[in-house]
């Protein structure tokens, strides 16, 4: 399916999904409360059939703009059947970073989400094994947050 028809099919499923600007592939942004049900339908709908979750990551937008800021959760989906891509993004507040897990839909999400928890501190509801992935269990802070500091980090020379 080409980008336009794909976006049309997705807005038909979820009217609150908006096209995301400045991306190189088809991309939609959805409110986090509509997110889980949309993700399930993206996989089960035979017209869409997004059976592969290539990657899941997050972006910390707190270095831009005022206030506590937001995390943007990014999911890169691919359909083996149709060969089309979709980037799904959802924004959650940085001071209450809770999102539903998609690991029941794509198994690999279990570990991709653990990485995002480890690096950003995003809490996934109903995740069966949410733990640190790379860092030790007792590590303080989440390194990929823009305001992360620890004693090993060097100041950047001007």
């Amino acid at each position, binding site marked *: 399916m080409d980008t336009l028809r794909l976006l049309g099919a997705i807005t038909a499923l979820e009217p609150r999904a908006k096209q995301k600007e400045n991306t190189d592939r088809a991309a939609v942004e959805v409110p986090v409360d509509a997110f889980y049900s949309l993700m399930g339908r993206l996989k089960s709908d035979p017209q869409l059939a997004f059976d*592969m979750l290539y990657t899941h990551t997050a972006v910390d937008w707190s270095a831009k703009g005022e206030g506590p800021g937001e995390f943007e959760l990014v999911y890169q989906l691919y359909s083996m059947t149709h060969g089309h891509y979709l980037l799904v993004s959802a924004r959650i507040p940085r001071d209450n970073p809770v999102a539903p897990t998609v690991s029941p839909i794509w*198994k690999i999400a279990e570990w991709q989400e653990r990485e995002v928890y480890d690096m950003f501190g995003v809490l996934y509801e109903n995740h069966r094994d949410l733990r640190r*992935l790379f860092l*030790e269990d007792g590590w303080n802070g989440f390194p990929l947050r823009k305001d992360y500091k620890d004693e090993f980090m060097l100041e950047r020379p001007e």
Partner: protein
Amino acid sequence: MSVHVSTLEERIRLQRTDGSPLATQEYFVNMGPQHPSTHGVLRLVLRLDGETVREVIPVLGYIHRGIEKMGERLGYRQFVHLSDRLDYLSALSNNWAISMAVEKAAKIELNDRIQVIRTIVAELQRIQSHQLWWGVFGMDLGAFTPFLYGFRDREIITDIFEETMGSRLTMNYIQPGGLMFDIHPNFVKRTKDFLTYFKPKLVEYETLLSENVIMQERLRGVGKVDAEAAVSLGCTGPVLRASGVAHDLRKLEPYGVYDKVQFDVAIGRTGDCWDRYWVRLEEMRQSMAIIEQLIDNIPEGKHMVMKPAAKIKLPEGSTYTHLETARGILGVYIVSDGSEEPYRIHLRTPNFNNLWMITEAAKNWRLGDLVAVLSSLDIVVPDIDR
């Protein structure tokens, strides 16, 4: 007169004062992080019932270096250096992935010479990576000779790379906008010599290891993962293709000059260890065919289309680019705020996503089979930890 023939269990039970049968229990064993068959510092916590694996819990992070965090403070040209340190056996493909992402976003047009050379060196590296895997695979299963054979033949490619790139492992050769150096005058001849040398050697690989009955018994039917599970578990590359999914970015979304060469995509049928083994052997053959079609027709031109010192700024927005390394899909997700450094750079690495299938594939197999499954995944740990 009756003779009583005893059993081991009875012999042991006699020693127990209460006469109860032999008690069994499940137990946990650490495999790694220092273990020869985990190829680096990967730790697996195993729940065992006797010698049967009930659960595999991978524990990561022993060489986590925070490459994505470092990337936020580096220019795109600098970041290419770090990409070598992901999957060091696919250093050129990694360089290429970053370069391709930058070139696509910054709209840098390349000439044919650059594309052809990139394709040739990437395929040479695919062969070299599979040679090393083949050697180590044999060793993990208890055959030492393949290790020596694999390294002997890999050395020739490494020498070819060293002559052109000045480096044997972390090449940093493919740059945004072209190549670090032009190819060495000996490159074409030595590559052709290598092909002539290696073709009969690949037949030798087959007679030495593939046709070995112990190998066949230990691989066939072991650690099966069907197509649906492999897709859901995020497997890519030879691991996914072994499960019967013909998914190869070189065919589906050709980059470089893959659309101008003839080659076949090797796929397996059952997704067992044997298929993962066979797919890689066939890929070596296909890679040689690709190089053969290109090596005599490298077009003339410059090896760099922009000044090496030129600053690269990507337009605001996000971009996702990926390509097929020797182990699967390496994806680069860049979020740019319009400056010289990425606001966020994320790497979707093939090994990270391939690793998790062992939690399903090795379940209820023996400990020795776990080693076979792990080795058939061709894990490179720095690529998992980043």
